[in-house]
């Protein structure tokens, strides 16, 4: 990754989309979300407690995801987040926006689509 400023801005801009994408299929708890981001970005993106949870809470406040305390057998009580119908719409819109954005950047910079 390039300069820390660019990294921070990119992270910020993309974070919402990342989280929405991760809870799209099924509800996940915060730790799991953090882990998945790190894993799937092959360590390029990492969220710690201080940045992840405020983000989750913000999305929840906006009504895009919803957290619920769930107790599963053999596990401790965890807060699972899942996408709300409103969140689903936002997620679709954001994904399209990002796709267009990335394509535009690629066209200009000549970076190949991965």
């Amino acid at each position, binding site marked *: 990754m390039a300069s820390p400023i660019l990294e921070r801005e990119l992270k910020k801009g993309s974070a919402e989309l990342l989280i929405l994408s991760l809870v799209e299929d099924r509800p996940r708890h915060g730790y799991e979300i953090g882990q998945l981001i790190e894993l799937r970005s092959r360590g390029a993106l990492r969220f710690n407690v*201080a940045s992840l*949870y405020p983000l989750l809470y*913000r999305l929840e406040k906006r009504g895009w995801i919803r957290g619920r305390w769930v107790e599963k057998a053999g596990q401790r009580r965890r*807060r699972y987040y899942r996408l709300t119908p409103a969140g689903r719409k936002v997620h679709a819109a954001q994904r399209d926006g990002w796709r267009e954005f990335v394509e535009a950047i690629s066209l200009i910079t000549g970076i190949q689509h991965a």
Partner: protein
Amino acid sequence: MPDFKEEIRKRLAQLRLSPMREHEIIEELSQHLEDEYENSLRGRVTEEEAFQAVLLRLDESNLLGPELNRVEVQTAQESTATGGERKSNMFADLGQDFRYGLRMLVRAPAFTTIAVLALALGIGANSAIFSVVNTVLLRPLPYKNPDALMMVWENATHLGFPINTPSPANFIDWREQNTVFEGMAAMAQSSFNLTDVGEPERFTGRRVSANLFSLLGAEPQLGRTFRPEEDKPGTRVAILGYGMWQRRFGGDASIIGRAINLNGELYTVVGVMPKSFVEIPSFDNWKDQLWVPIAFSSEEATQRGNHFLEILARLKPGITRQQAQAEMDTIAARLAQQYPDYNTRIGIIVKPLHEQVVGNIKGALIVLLGAVGFVLLIACANVANLLLARAAVRQKEIALRLALGASRSRLTRQFLTESVLLAAIGGGVGLLFSIVGINVLKTFIPDTISQAQSITVDGKVLIFTLLISLVTGVIFGLAPATQASSFNLNDTLKEGGRDSGASSRGNRIRNLLVISEVAISFVLLIGAGLLINSFLHLRNLDPGFRADHLLTMKVVLPELKYPDKQRRAPFYEEVLRRVRSLPGVESVAFGGNLPFTYNGDSIFISIEGRPDPAPDQQVDVVTRVVSPGYFHTMGIPLVQGRDFDEQDKVDSTQLVVITQKTARHFWPGENPIGKRLKPGSSTSESPWREVVGVVKDVRQNDFLAEPKLQMYLAHTQTNAFAPNALVVRTTVDPLSLAATVRRTIWEVDKDQPVSDIDTMESIVSHAVARQRFSMVLLGVFATLALVLAAVGIYGVMSYSVAQRTREIGIRMALGAQRSDVLKMTVMQGLKLVLTGVVIGLASALLLTRVMASLLFGVSATDPATFLSISLVLTTVAVLASYIPALRAMKVDPMVALRCQ
């Protein structure tokens, strides 16, 4: 496992999240950290190293606090401010608050009952008075475009008649010369004896211009109104009022076109007015039961000195009252120049009809409305007090809810919902009270108040009640609600629910409430005191006669049958002879226009040997024609000379009896007996009349006005102003003789109507009905205020004593005497009361000025009233704090200390 919770708690501390939210975040974040920690341990690190690594990452960019702050605190504010997505929650909360509030009220039935009763009294009184105001002052008169309707009067202030009935010739000139009115109609009071159908009966009505009904925009129920061509002498047509049609003709529709006998002449009924037709207001309390065309005779039409009309006019569209007044002023000036003998200094007054109708009661109603507003404020203060005391009891509940995450604004809202709910219930019960109250009001509201009997609770009253209930709920809910929101959670939890710190603020509010209650009731009591004082003054005024044991009735002789004094005299004499011999009758007489029933006929007089006064110097004398024995029967003391007697005949010396005031006016310092005067100018044909007696002055139609100049003539010697009332002084209950006396009159003339049978006492009491109305109501409200204030003071003092039980116990343990405790407690109450009295005194001095027009014989700042009310209020207040003080005195130091 290390305790991450404490670490997170530390980092969240300055965010001041609600306890519940804080708990939730700590829970979630600590789990995350624990996961990370366990993950770290899988590498080759010590527990301590893993712990430090986790913390390091937690604080990496020092973001947690600021980020959470942005999400949790700022967005919360944002969403409350904008409403936005929280809206649905607000309503959900409201529903929840409402149900919760209802449960709380049901669970405390004593509290709820007392609070609802206090509020219902306050709100009910307001609704009742408002419905009177609504009907009498606010409801438009039931005529077409009523705002353009005016009454037009002569202004003869220099003669003591600022509002005077115009003369026909003046009316005709006004009508012809003005350009501001669409039309003008004249009315003249008249009474009609109905004969030939059942019992003879006298009906009051008016002769009216043919255009009167179209001017009002009133349609008949049956038939038609008058045609313009019917407004001339000789046409005999009549329109009946709904009441007369129903009662005397059984609502028979075939009455139209039938002839009825009125005053011995046949009139054709052409129309019947509907029940909804509201009477046209009159100069005095004349009730119209039927109408005939005014049809001025050619002689009448030229009369300029005979004032007996009431004029109704409708402004042309676009003309203001001021423009009309200006033009009428010009006309008045012109007429004064043209007819100096009659019109010098006679002005014209254009007065809106509505003002004419409500004029004499408006002031009283506004004062009453203010008074009930005050009563409601006191009720509010009381309920606020109760709520404060309850809030103290409910501290544990509040603390628990705060601890469970309720926000302070949410608690405030909860408290407001509860108080508004309380007020709404109070308002509902109050509405019932007001319906009962209105029915009670109707029984003693003066019937001079227009539309008084149609007072009802209508939509406007309902809206008014709803609004004041809401406002009331917010007012008395504010104090406890703000107290709840400034509640200190930690202190309460630590002190285990004991009343503490927060309540010193509560005490301050409570003290303020007591002070304001005392101040407000002081103002009300002063108002009531002043009115009661005026009323007593009024009742103590000497009317000039003895009203007790007097039976009166109207006996109006039809002019056709009894056209002159010679033909009337035998009837009078025979009735007097027969009634006098009835058991229970002490004396009996005929008289014209009894006091308090009529303004009085007045004429100007000339004195023998003196030049006639200039037209604007003429003095009118109220003239009453009586039979011998009138003064004795009425109890009017004869001061000098003699009464008329049976020897004073048509052809003997023409006589007159005058009042003291008349004697002083015309013959100051001289003996008037034997002097001669005559009605009209000295050159007129009427004979000189010799003064044979002087009697005491009698008040005429207005209790408040000084008696006018008056004189009495013998019925045998006067054609004008025939006596129309029989007065009987009885030794038994006057009304028990009514039927016998009436039958006796019918023995003399079976067709002679007899009406308005009443006692003189009731006539006099009617004359002060308006004053009594204001006095009784304000008295009731002031008493209500006093009781409520006393209850309030008592409540606060008992609460304060209960709160200070321990302190009192300590004091007594340390050697304080019971009397010291008593003194301390009473002094505490007294201090509040005196502060309230001082504030009330200052406010009353300002506020009672608005009552000046309602007062009689007392000034608005009457020191005696102020002093006695201060004493009464202070006494009541001291008593209200004395009872709790007695309880304080009985505190057992041991028990008080142990209960700590």
